[in-house]
C-alpha cells in the first residue's frame, strides 16, 4: 500500500489526478469528477469521422504548442494502437506523454457512455507528467453522432473534411452542431471533389449559430495555426478560472 493511502483517512489523492481530502469513497464537493477551471489541466476532446484528420490535427497542435504548453495526449483506436504509434513516430511529443486506449469496437461508447478507461488514462498521464497544462484526447474515428461526455473533456473540437462531401454540415448531428469548435479540414481537396466551401460554411453556420468554425488544410505549413490559437485562448480562459 502506498504510504499516502491510509484507509479511512483523508489523503492527498494525487494518484487519481485530483487533489482533495475525502473520506473513503465519499466525495466532499460537487467537483469530484469534473474538476473546476484552473484546478487541473484543460482537457480538449478531438472527435470526428474516420480519415477526417484528427491525428494530423493532434500532431500539428503538439508541434505548435508543446514547446510552450506542457501537453499530454490520449488516443482512442478502434482496432490498434496505430494513432498513438503514428504520433510517436512523428516525435511531436516524448513517447511517454502519449497513451492509447483500446475501445472495444465502440469508439463512441468510450468517449460518451462509459468513459472509465479514458478517465483512467487521462488521470494517469496527468499525474505522471504533473504539472500538465493541456490534455488532448483523440476519439477513434466514428460517425456524426459521436460526442464527448462533459465529464471527460472541458472543450471539444469536431473535425470533418471536405472530401467527405459538402453535405456533411447540413446533416448536422451533435458534433457538427454543438462542438466548441468545428474544423472543416482538407480545403485543398475541394476542387478535386467538387465540394463547395461556401455551401459548407453557410450550412455549418446555420447549424451552429455563433459557435466558431475553422477551415483548414493541415498539409499546408502552419495549417493548424488558427486552431492552435483557439486552443491557447481556451487555455487562458480555463486557467483564469
Amino acid at each position, binding site marked *: 500500500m502506498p504510504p499516502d493511502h491510509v484507509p*479511512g483517512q483523508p489523503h492527498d489523492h494525487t494518484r487519481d489526478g485530483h487533489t482533495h481530502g475525502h473520506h473513503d469513497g465519499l466525495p466532499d464537493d460537487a467537483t469530484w*469528477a469534473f474538476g473546476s477551471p484552473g484546478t487541473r489541466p484543460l482537457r480538449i476532446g478531438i472527435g470526428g469521422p474516420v480519415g477526417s484528420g484528427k491525428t494530423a490535427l493532434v500532431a500539428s497542435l503538439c508541434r505548435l504548442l508543446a514547446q510552450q504548453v506542457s501537453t499530454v495526449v490520449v488516443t482512442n483506436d478502434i482496432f490498434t494502437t496505430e494513432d498513438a504509434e503514428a504520433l510517436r513516430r512523428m516525435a511531436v511529443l516524448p513517447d511517454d506523454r502519449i497513451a492509447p486506449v483500446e475501445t472495444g469496437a465502440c469508439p463512441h461508447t468510450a468517449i460518451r457512455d462509459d468513459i472509465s478507461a479514458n478517465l483512467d488514462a487521462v488521470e494517469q498521464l496527468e499525474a505522471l507528467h504533473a504539472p500538465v497544462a493541456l490534455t488532448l484526447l483523440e476519439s477513434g474515428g466514428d460517425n456524426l453522432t459521436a460526442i464527448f461526455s462533459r465529464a471527460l473533456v472541458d472543450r471539444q473540437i469536431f473535425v470533418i473534411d471536405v472530401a467527405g462531401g459538402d453535405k456533411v454540415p447540413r446533416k448536422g448531428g451533435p458534433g457538427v452542431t454543438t462542438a466548441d469548435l468545428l474544423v472543416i479540414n482538407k480545403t485543398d481537396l475541394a476542387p478535386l471533389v467538387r465540394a463547395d466551401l461556401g455551401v459548407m460554411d453557410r450550412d455549418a453556420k446555420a447549424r451552429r449559430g455563433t459557435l466558431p468554425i475553422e477551415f483548414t488544410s493541415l498539409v499546408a505549413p502552419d495549417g493548424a495555426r488558427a486552431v492552435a490559437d483557439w486552443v491557447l485562448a481556451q487555455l487562458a480562459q480555463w486557467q483564469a478560472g
Partner: protein
Amino acid sequence: MTTATLLLLADSRFPTGAHAHSAGVEASHGRGDVRTVADLATFIDGRLLTTAPTDAAFAAAACAQPHQWGELDHELAIRTPSPRLRTVSRSLGRQLLRGAERAWPATPGATLRGLHPEGPMQPIALGAVAAAAGLTPHDAALCTLHHLVGAVTTAAVRLAGFDPFEVHALAARLGPRLDALAATAAAQAHDAPALLPATTSLLADILAEHHTTWEVRLFAS
C-alpha cells in the same frame, strides 16, 4: 429494493470500462475456435468449468469478508498466471470503483485502490462494491457470472456476426447453471482465501498473452 440495485450493477450499460473487453472470445475466435454458436456454447462451457467458479467465489468472499481483501486479492492474483490478464483485471477493478463510488458512496474506494499499485483485481472490487450497495455474496457471485456471459456473447455477436437472438437464447438456457454456480460460490463466501477454488484455464491465459501482441484487434482483451 436490493433487486433493483442488483440489476443496476449487473447491467452492461453501467459504466465500468468492460465494454472494451471480450473475455477471451476474440483470441479464441481468431484461432478458429468460435465459428458457430455451438462453438460459443462450448467456449462458455469451458469458462463455467474453469475461471468462472474461481472468480465467482472470490467475488462472494470479497463481499462477505472485507477484513480479508488484501489476502483475497493476493490469492486471486496467484490464480491468474497471465500477466496480461492480471493487468486487465486490475484496470477493470480500478474502473469499476470509479462508477461505484458515485453510485454507492459507501464504497471504500481508497482502501480498495490501496490493495495494489494497479488497483484491486476485478472480482475483489465487485464483491466489495456489492457489499457497499447492500447486496449479498450470492448477488456478487451471480453478477460475476452474468458479466462473463454478457461479455462473451456481446463480443461474439460483434466479431462473428452471429444471430443475436440465437446467442441470447443460449444465454437464457445457461440461467439455471449460473444460479447453481452462484449458490456454490455463496456457500464458500466465508472460507479462508487460500481454500477458495483454484480452477483456471491455461489456454485462456496463453491466448490472452498472444492476443495482446496482435497488431489489429477489436477488443482490449
